[in-house]
């Protein structure tokens, strides 16, 4: 009973925070709700025995990406933002599409059958520790994608600087 209650709290909190994120007119408020949302998602990861993922969820998302959001919002002049419409004119259409997709996905979730279980059982991870198990995989089987990920980050850094730099003469 306890796990269900635990999940129920987290799930309802996540959905409510998500709704708050997309409906607030002040972006700063949205960011704050999103911060809470990310913490709750990290909690859910812990609940799923993924402590390393939970850690980087907090560090990268909450610590880095959200701060970036905040910076950008502060760079822009947003006093006007509070007075104008939040949604585009045809928002019911967007709502309909999202709702219809949700209905379709929910209708198929029931028929989902999980495949055979792998070797990373809870006992195995307990013995290995989660971070070590993940790190071993990352630096052996997934070394090449890992390196590519670093390249993607490098490109992103350079690209961001190039794009955001004030051009001479502007």
């Amino acid at each position, binding site marked *: 009973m306890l796990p269900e209650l635990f999940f129920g709290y987290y799930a309802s909190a996540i*959905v409510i925070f998500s709704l708050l994120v997309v409906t607030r007119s002040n972006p700063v408020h949205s960011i704050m709700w999103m911060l809470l949302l990310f913490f709750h998602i990290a909690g859910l990861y812990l609940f799923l025995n*993924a402590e390393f993922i939970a850690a980087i969820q907090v560090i990268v*998302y909450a610590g880095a*990406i959200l701060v970036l959001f905040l910076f950008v919002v502060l760079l822009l002049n947003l006093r006007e*933002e509070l007075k104008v419409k939040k949604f*585009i004119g045809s928002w019911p259409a967007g709502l309909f599409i999202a709702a219809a997709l949700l209905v379709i996905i929910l209708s198929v979730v029931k028929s989902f059958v999980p495949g055979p279980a792998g070797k990373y059982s809870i006992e195995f991870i307990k013995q290995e520790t989660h971070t070590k198990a993940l790190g071993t995989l990352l630096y052996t089987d997934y070394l090449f994608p890992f390196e590519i990920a670093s390249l993607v*980050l490098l490109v*992103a850094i350079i*690209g961001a*600087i190039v794009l955001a730099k004030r051009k001479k003469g502007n």
Partner: protein
Amino acid sequence: MVPLNWYLILSAAVFMIGVFGFLTRRNIIIIFMSVELMLNAVNISLVAFSHYLQDMRGQILVIFIITVAAAEAAIGFAIIIALFRNKDTVHVDEMDEMKG
């Protein structure tokens, strides 16, 4: 024991909230946040799968998704700043340079 389906339903709900935000908000920063929301929804389902199938690959994928999300955020904000500098607006319905 919480069934896997609950996680999947949660994931779908968050994803669709993200889609709704993406399709309807005018502020491009909120649209970006909606995209992050969708990525997180996917992450939730991937971690859940990883747990229930006792397979680490789902979490490996999550790490890459977070990496790409970080990169995407950096580039995206650079574009937003460049746009704001030129157009003096963050409202996507006022940006229709590609109008035919």
